[in-house]
């Protein structure tokens, strides 16, 4: 697959939303973006908080524009990981791109057969520290649902 289409986005969103409601049990917002971070489709499940829409979009945007899941981006801005060398950390990323940069776990990249990032899924709505149930797992289900589109 070359790029994320609306058809793929709808399939991923349906799978993520289903998993979030039936297994995780939290109302989430889920967003799918293309390789540039431009929105393709967004769903807010019934009962999900209003702010989760924008957070989901921006998690997906952060993932697509950094080619990294936001769980890994969060490590970059973790002050406990500050290195011994002066400036050996990513704390300067905070607030980048007019505040859109969102280093909060929940964004997962969509990759093609050559492991190049062609888009991302972002989810928001699951509280942190829930063990195996997290925003990341909600997004990951959406990525898994795209297996049909691989050659």
């Amino acid at each position, binding site marked *: 697959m070359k790029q994320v289409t609306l058809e793929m986005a709808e399939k991923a969103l349906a799978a993520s939303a289903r998993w979030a409601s039936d297994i995780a049990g939290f109302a989430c917002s889920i967003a799918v973006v293309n390789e540039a971070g*431009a929105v393709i489709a967004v769903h*807010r499940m019934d009962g999900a908080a209003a702010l989760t*829409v924008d957070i989901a979009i921006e998690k997906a945007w952060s993932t697509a524009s950094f080619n990294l899941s936001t769980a890994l981006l969060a490590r970059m801005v973790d002050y406990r990981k500050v290195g011994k060398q002066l400036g050996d950390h990513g704390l300067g990323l905070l607030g980048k791109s007019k505040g859109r940069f969102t280093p909060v776990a929940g964004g997962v990249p969509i990759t093609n057969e050559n492991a190049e990032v062609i888009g991302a899924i972002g989810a928001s709505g699951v509280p942190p520290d829930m063990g195996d149930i997290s925003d990341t797992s909600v997004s990951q289900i959406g990525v898994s649902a795209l297996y049909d589109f691989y050659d």
Partner: protein
Amino acid sequence: MVMTLELARKAIRIALEHTRKTGNICSIAVTDRNGVLVALHRMDGALIPTADIARDKAWTAAVFQCPSSEISRYGDPAAPNSGFNTSNWNDRITSIPGGLPIKDDSGVIGGIGVSGGTPEEDMAVCEATIWALQLESDNKA
């Protein structure tokens, strides 16, 4: 009735069908009655800004409870609430045609915004979607 994801997806499906018939490529957004986004789809190949503009139109139609094109009436100094059209307090208000409130017997339950074609085409898609939704709810009742 309140706006649900199911209803929003139904509205978007109807709007997408209608848009494909006209051969246009566009973005469609549906908000609840508070203007908070419920679902947003950008068709393959639709210009990137159309996604945000569709969302803006849906927000404007839902919170002002009128077609987004009618926001320009607040430009009349004699009109009540004159000046709303330029306040832009959350960078979302727009007077571009193509946003309509979704109503039922209880009043406004949401908004729909379409962006991608000419103002007339966008408006036609909104109207067709709302008609189709109304027909469905009438049939149920």
